[in-house]
């Protein structure tokens, strides 16, 4: 009875397709969750760096660095990337002494921020790639959630002057 095999085949195909769809929907959700968590971690590290820079500016280096740190802390979301880049530039302009605990705090915060930025960029890319797939768009999976946004800033790593004697 060839008709029966057609029916069995169709049931199997529908089963596989729905399993795939369920899996894909779960994947899109999971990637969005991760991108959101990474964004929260990135936010925390941006605040931590700006706070450390403000503390340092109060003790040394003065007004310009303090202003940059304050602007970064208070920036409107649209202006935040520019404000953070400005703070990075200000920090690069001053001579940081790794032996000083306040300087070391800024250097460490910048290093952690660089890691958080790296992780965030990767996870946002993964989430956007999954969201952009044709089937995902067609079935409007992940609707009701915003597209994860990149946070586009320069690498905030501070290069510490090497304490190697110059020959």
């Amino acid at each position, binding site marked *: 009875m060839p008709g029966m095999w057609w029916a069995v085949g169709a049931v199997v195909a529908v089963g596989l397709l729905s399993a795939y769809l369920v899996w894909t929907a779960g994947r899109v959700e999971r990637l969005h969750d*991760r991108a959101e*968590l990474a964004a929260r971690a990135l936010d925390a590290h941006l605040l931590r760096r700006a706070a450390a820079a403000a503390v340092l500016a109060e003790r040394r280096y003065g007004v310009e660095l303090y202003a940059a740190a304050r602007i970064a802390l208070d920036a409107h979301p649209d202006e935040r990337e520019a404000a953070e880049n400005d703070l990075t530039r200000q920090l690069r302009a001053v001579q940081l002494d790794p032996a000083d605990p306040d300087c070391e705090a800024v250097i460490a915060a910048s290093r952690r921020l660089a890691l958080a930025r790296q992780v965030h*960029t990767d996870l946002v890319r993964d989430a956007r790639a999954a969201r952009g797939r044709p089937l995902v768009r067609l079935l409007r999976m992940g609707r009701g959630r915003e597209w994860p946004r990149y946070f586009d800033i320069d690498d905030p790593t501070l290069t510490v002057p090497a304490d*190697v004697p110059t020959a």
Partner: protein
Amino acid sequence: MRIGIVCPYSFDVPGGVQNHVMDLAEALIALGHEVSVLAPADEDSPLPPYVVPAGRAVPLPYNGSVARIAFGPVSTARVRRWITRGEFDVLHVHEPLTLSLSLLAVLSARGPVVATFHTAITRSRALAAAQGVLQIVLERITARIAVSALARKVQVEHLDGGAVEIPNGVAVAKFADAEPLPGWPGECGPGTGGALGFLGRFTEPRKGFPVLRDAFVELAPRRPGLRLLVAGPGDRDDLYDQFPASLHDRVTFLGLVSEEDKARMLRSVHLYVAPNTGGESFGMILTEALAAGTTVVASDLDAFRRVLDGGRAGRLFPTGNPAALRDALAELLDDPGARAELTACGDQVVATFDWPVVARRVLEVYAAAIEATDGRVIDEEWVGLG
């Protein structure tokens, strides 16, 4: 922190990745963390206490050499059991894109997953073709580490993602405290004596042994007492056939050496020579020679220049030029002051490669991965079904 590390290759065979995993695990334990390493190995093989064997590995040709790996349903079950029992705060897999325990672990786990990429696979068609499958693996990784600038470049260009560059560590103390071989390095004065070292497969063209041989053959007759110490895999006769008979008693061949003997060998020479003509992604051996306090003379390759701080921590010579190497060797053997200056700089360079320092940087990546994920590493139905 509870840390689960997965090593893809068997500890029965020595190798760069295995050494890296063991040194990292020991450094993390020394910093007060709980570490469990899952690696392919027989139940009854002698292993460090922190290693959990995942069963026998089978040999498989990979990337030009033979890797011993474990893969299949039994391995999968063991990986999942290890993840469930471990209750890890972070899972750290090495080389997750090889068919191995690492790949199984990435597919079985959910939570903070850090991956370290060792090989610098340049432009691979297989890589491009399998992009869709790779994406499923890669998107389960929270943070990526590359051990060299080249490995990082592969990440950025072919795997569509960034990676934090953290160099291979060196167990500095192991090298600095090693005992030189009896009778080495011997005398070294103006115009006389001196010991040179080479480590690696001398038949492999990229290791550049002929460059060193030519320099040695020219220099030795002019410099009585100059000796050459060679270690690495290869046939004794193949090595001696490359030298005129009059110089045979001045070349010593150690064959393949253990990690311990490698340290002793590096301490036994005045100059360690790395005449490589290409293909080195990091130059691990250079950091080891620096850790041993031996002056390094190396070809002017990007990777070497970076390790040697642009030539301040070791002498660079134009790649593949025996005459330039000969002159550099003669000059440095005659000048203990210049050697001391280079090794002093080398000490500072190597301090940044010391395992406790490197392990702290790895811990920062763990922290970043944990912040970007919810909760612990949990076992999960395969490839996220359910």
